[in-house]
């Protein structure tokens, strides 16, 4: 007994000593990325705590408490994912892709409808929206397919294959209907292809096709009597071009959001905020939370939040270049671009320069699926970073 104890107490001369920080991967995490994500989530909880007090009579903390729980769960998920070597996902690509498509399809069967669209499963404590997690899953699977098929077929065939793989789930989401998220899917697909080395010429063709398609959907098809978009979708997409004309219609929300942000001026109106406190701005805890920040905390608050996103994106891009393998590059690139796209579209929508598409602001907008999925995506980025650092040191963890 004593001998055993004595042996254990003595340090192993040749063993590498691994501390708790290293065990958790903390040492090799990208700290600015973590700080940006946590700061955004904290700011979200803080904002919701002030802005949604009167939303649900009798439970002033309804949204705050839930968002806080989602954030904590998201952080745990991020930490867990960071420890796993993301390269495993490449092997699981078919399974991930299948799960992605099936889960989105199941929403049509079991999902519950909210505001005219079936997007989520109603679970006991929370409604799960597969398409939010789907953004990450699509990147993980598609990056795998790109790496795997890198040497099969001609460049054109490959491009077409990637496009089909990416657009299939995007189409499913579009049919829910959830125009915003399906656009994120398309952008994520293009991002993975971009870092997958698809030639510039192909992007040019894709871009041209896209322009033609938009023209068809918005102008040509309705004029011959084949509406592709629902009326409200089309109105939202086009009304931002001339918000004054729709002061009480589709442009109303956006106009109110612009007024809210403008009225915040440099330092914000705090609790004297009216636009976002008195229901002039709709969906203020989700899609229009940036308007709340703009009105309550002014340019200082809004610019601070934007800076955090810039930091987030900068670190994500950094991880793209650091990745130890191409799969990591593609995954990080897909995640980075889809985050950038969501931030730009959402904030642009709040500022009245982008159409209303129902894309949440990552980590800020209230919503469990979105918060969890974004933290998990950040976790994957961390994993790529950690693996890259370990590879640099010539060591592989687990």
């Amino acid at each position, binding site marked *: 007994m004593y001998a055993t104890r004595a042996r254990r107490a003595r340090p192993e001369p040749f063993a590498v000593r691994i501390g708790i920080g290293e065990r958790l991967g903390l040492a090799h995490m990208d700290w600015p990325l973590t700080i940006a994500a946590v700061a955004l989530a904290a700011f979200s909880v803080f904002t919701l705590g002030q802005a949604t007090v009167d939303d649900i009579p009798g439970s002033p903390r309804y949204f705050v408490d839930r968002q806080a729980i989602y954030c904590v769960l998201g952080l745990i998920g991020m930490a867990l994912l960071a420890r796993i070597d993301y390269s495993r996902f490449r092997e699981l690509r078919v399974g991930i892709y299948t799960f992605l498509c099936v889960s989105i399809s199941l929403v049509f069967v079991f999902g519950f409808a909210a505001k005219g669209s079936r997007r989520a499963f109603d679970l006991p404590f929370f409604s799960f929206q597969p398409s939010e997690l789907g953004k990450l899953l699509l990147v993980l699977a598609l990056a795998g397919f790109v790496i795997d098929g890198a040497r099969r077929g001609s460049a054109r065939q490959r491009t077409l294959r990637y496009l089909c793989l990416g657009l299939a789930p995007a189409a499913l989401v579009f049919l829910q209907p959830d125009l915003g998220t399906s656009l994120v899917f398309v952008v994520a697909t293009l991002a993975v292809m971009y870092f997958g080395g698809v030639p510039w010429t192909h992007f040019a063709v894709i871009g041209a096709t896209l322009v033609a398609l938009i023209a068809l959907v918005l102008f040509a098809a309705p004029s011959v009597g084949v509406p592709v978009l629902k009326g409200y979708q089309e109105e939202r997409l086009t009304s931002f071009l001339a918000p004054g004309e729709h002061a009480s219609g589709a442009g109303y929300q956006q106009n109110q959001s612009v007024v809210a942000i403008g009225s915040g001026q440099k330092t914000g109106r705090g609790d004297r905020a009216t636009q976002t406190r008195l229901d002039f701005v709709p969906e203020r805890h989700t899609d229009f939370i940036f308007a709340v920040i703009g009105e309550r905390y002014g340019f200082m608050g809004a610019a601070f939040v934007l800076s955090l996103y810039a930091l987030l994106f900068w670190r994500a891009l950094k991880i793209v270049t650091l990745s*130890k393998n191409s799969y990591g590059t593609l995954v990080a690139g897909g995640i980075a671009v889809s985050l950038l796209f969501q931030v*730009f579209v959402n904030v642009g929508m709040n500022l009245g320069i982008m159409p209303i598409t129902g894309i949440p602001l990552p980590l800020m907008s209230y919503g469990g699926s979105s918060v969890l999925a974004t933290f998990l995506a950040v976790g994957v980025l961390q994993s790529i970073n950690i693996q890259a650092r370990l590879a640099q040191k010539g060591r592989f963890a687990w």
Partner: protein
Amino acid sequence: MYLRSNDRPGPRLALRVAVLSGVAVALFGVLFFRLWDLQVLSGAEYLAEAKNNRTREFKVIAPRGDILDRDGNVLVDNRTSLALQLNTQKLPQDPAEERSELTRLGRLVHMPLRKVRRTIKEGEEVAAGAPVTLRKDVGYDLVYYLEENQRAFPGVAVQRVFVRAYPDATRAAHVVGSVGEISEEELKEPAYKGLEPGDEVGKGGVETTYDRYLRGEPGQTKIQVNALGQPTPGGQLVSQPPIPGDNLKLTIDPDVQSAGESALASFGLPGAFVTMDVRDGQILGMGSSPTFDPTVLATPMTQSQVNELYRDPVSAPLTNRASESYYPVGSTFKIITALAALEGGEITLTEPIYDNGSIMVGTQEFQNAGGVSFGPVDMVSALQVSSDVYFYTLGWKMWETNQLQSWAGKLGIGKESGLDIPGETGTESLVPSKEWRDQLFSEGETDRPWSAGDNVQLAIGQGDLQTNPLQMAIAYSALANDGTIVTPHVGMEVEDAAGRVLKEFDPPPRRKIKIDPAYRAAILEGLHQAAQAPGGTSYGVFGGFPIEVAGKTGTVERPGHGDQSWYAVVAPYPNPRIVTIVTVEEGGFGAEAAAPAALQILEAYFHKQATETGAANGGSPG
């Protein structure tokens, strides 16, 4: 191909990362620039817009002043009632759902969808965004129903409003009038300056005449509202309370008024009465039968109520027969003939005329009523027995001189009286004259020019004469008060809520005319004999009345109808204070219907006078 699964990426990746970085910088740059533009460069404008966004001004309706009779009893006041309001912004977006809700709502308040939509449209034109009042005065059962089924009726709210209340229902209905929403035409009138569509103003009666005193001033509440226009808790920003309207006290004497109304009602025939102070034109009582309950006008009407009030030209309950209907007045007109003849020197007080029951004017024979013959009569006895032949003769004497018409006009017949109740139309009133008929004849409107027979008819108040009880009251007042043409009025004073008198109404007389005192005395004596001397036309009615009076019956023959009964009386004789004119359509002889009604009115008046004097003298009436 730069993709090698476990290799570090090469320079081509660096290019792509650089391009993406550039795009990202551009995108973030756009966002920052836009943010700077909105918040720092144009923040002040947006702040102003946001502040404007959250406040809404609501007009707080001022209650109208009460209308009181001369003793201070309430004729009209207000009660709070519930109005159904619709917040159009909260209606369903979907046109089909909106239509369904409006249809269901319309069914609850008995309005077809078309009318609901029109009401909403009109309300929106007045004040866009403000709640539209769909129906006033809804019942509690409906309110409870709506509250229980709130989900089925989004945007529907119930608001407290003031509604006119009439404690005595039909009491003095034609005098007080009613209220209603201001019309487009009224809005343009200077009298209604500053009012807005939807405001309530008087519609007829003193409600119209004294609207500016009764109306009050609306207050204003500025409250913080949310995007749905709903007030937010604790969000009252500014409040300016409404100033209630002042009270209007009328000259109407409750005892006289109720006596007159019940007397008229007892016949069940159309008719009217007016009782006026001969000295200053204060109207103590004025009524018309059939009457109406103004409450019905204050609340939404059923079609049968509308038909009853507006569509029946015969009973026409809204018409004030005392001042808005025009009739021949029969023998009550004789005092004017008498005055004209005496003042014109056509006859002296004592000169007798032999009444053998009829008179031939040209080829036409004019008879006394019933064909009776009174023998030789002078002025006093001619008035006492109401000899038609005597006055036929006078009329015949004056047929070419316009003397009779001129005196009728001097006494106010055929002229607007200046009564402070709207509805009088001078154009319908007529004293037939040579000029008038010859003009008609030259235009081919009638078959013959002016003739002596026309003036003979006029002399006893028959034929083409068109006048009304109010004009007769003025003429009799002039006789009673020695030549003053008073301005009849029902408005006495304006009081504030504490009862302080703010304004008194004492309109000056229209004019003074000269009447020979001897003629006046003789005519009054004739009337006194008619009422209270044996053989007088209304001796049977007034013979036993303890107060001395001077009264004249009148009976108008209306082809196709029963005779119209008239009575005109001034009292007390010989220095009268009041005049009462009563007419009952198809009531028969003057002494049959109108005189007994006048008696009831005088009884009420003098009974009250005696009680008041008795009280003033320590309760010991001699």
